[in-house]
């Protein structure tokens, strides 16, 4: 059940309890039939709950509410039962609701004024103040909804614009990252492990290996195991190896090698080179 509908039933329960207390406290005649009537009103409104989903059918429930309130104003003679009608006014949502609810309100408060011989004007002031609050609330919510939809549309447009940019942005980001790390590594400002990790993240390569000639040390970042035991690394020249004995021995279709001062960089592609030429030109 929706929480607003739950609240509506809470109002009905409060009406029933107050009628019971009122009838029993003042020891009315026919107090048992009256309390049974109020009970059956609550249970009947629970049974008619499916009507609440309908747009026009729900007014059948409100007609029952108004008639019960009017009936108990007559029987008890207490005009202040009419104030129980006010919380129902929160459920105005559309124009036809507004028209029908104003008819109900006119009936309830007209009858209670008639019973008090048109002497009790507090009811009118209560009603007017409530209507002012209601009208203000209506305009506030309208304004609020407009703002929310405006910002939502703005966010959606920005999301689309962002998507347009990301495609170009990725290429430049990769390009800039690789250019930066290579230049920093040549100056000796970057650790070999960080250099290799950075290349591995930005390239679509299966493995990246850096060999230090002086220390005879390997730095490896790889998806697969690369067996370099039988191979003399010094034999690699500055070029892209395709269909040569290194390829068949290591099991990679493309191997890119490059000599730096004191280092040899090897980049392995298992099946295909998936990177753009502009990025590879930075390395080779």
């Amino acid at each position: 059940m929706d929480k607003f509908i739950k609240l509506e039933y809470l109002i009905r329960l409060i009406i029933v309890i107050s009628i019971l207390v009122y009838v029993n406290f003042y020891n009315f005649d026919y107090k048992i039939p009256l309390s049974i009537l109020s009970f059956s009103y609550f249970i009947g409104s629970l049974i008619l709950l499916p009507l609440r989903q309908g747009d026009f059918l729900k007014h059948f429930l409100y007609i029952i509410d108004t008639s019960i309130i009017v009936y108990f104003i007559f029987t008890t003679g207490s005009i202040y039962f009419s104030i129980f009608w006010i919380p129902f006014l929160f459920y105005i949502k559309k124009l036809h609701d507004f028209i029908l609810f104003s008819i109900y309100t006119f009936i309830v408060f007209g009858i209670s004024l008639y019973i008090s011989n048109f002497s009790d004007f507090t009811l009118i002031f209560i009603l007017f103040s409530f209507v002012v609050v209601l009208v203000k609330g209506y305009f506030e919510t309208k304004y609020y909804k407009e703002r929310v939809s405006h910002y939502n549309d703005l966010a959606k447009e920005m999301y689309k614009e962002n998507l347009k940019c990301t495609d170009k942005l990725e290429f430049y980001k990769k390009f800039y990252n690789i250019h930066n790390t290579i230049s920093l590594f040549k100056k000796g400002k970057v650790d070999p492990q960080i250099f290799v990790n950075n290349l591995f993240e930005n390239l679509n390569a299966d493995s990246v290996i850096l060999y230090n000639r002086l220390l005879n040390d390997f730095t490896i970042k790889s998806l697969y195991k690369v067996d370099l035991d039988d191979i003399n690394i010094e034999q690699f020249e500055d070029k892209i190896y395709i269909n040569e004995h290194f390829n068949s021995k290591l099991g990679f279709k493309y191997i890119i090698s490059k000599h730096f001062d004191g280092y040899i960089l090897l980049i392995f592609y298992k099946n295909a080179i998936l990177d753009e030429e502009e990025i590879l030109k930075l390395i080779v």
Partner: protein
Amino acid sequence: MDLKKIKKDLKIYEGIDFKFYNNGILYSDIGYGDKFVILYLNLEDKSLSTLRDFSSYQVFKEILKRFITISYPAGFRTRFILSLKQDIYTFKKYIDEVVGNEKVLDLFILDSVGVGNEKIMANNLSSNKIMKVREIIENFGLCTDLIIDKELILDNFNADSFIVKSFPNCFLKKLDNSFYNEKLRDRTVFMITTILKKLY
């Protein structure tokens, strides 16, 4: 949405009948053949309130609808698998038990698709297949790229697998389904269906 509700929702035509496996996986076939191409989607939240779940589900549904109403790829069976909150190990178990590991030709895993900037993460592919997919992407002008899958979720899996994943921006987790866009969905659906039809 519960899985039973999803089953009802996916029943676009009467010929399609989704079956249950292990109370967590729904599957059904389209087409005829001995071998399988699998389309797999895993939903993280059953309410479909987040953008990634909602749009991936819409893409899944749209592919199914197009296969039924327009045409389906011939030569193999396309198996649609949808699971709810299942990890990849139950999926592997499902493939071993129900499909058979050697019968799987290709595996398409949909991971937050229909959001924009989709990439195909290739895993375990032969070079011929990679060339073929690249040709398809170039000839049809599909808005995607092939990249190497470095996360290796499907380690030790024999079949060729494509993980279709989108990398729109870092806010993807926070966005709800009001950001859903039909143009982006249609683009992804076109991408996946053309690759499925032209690959063999």
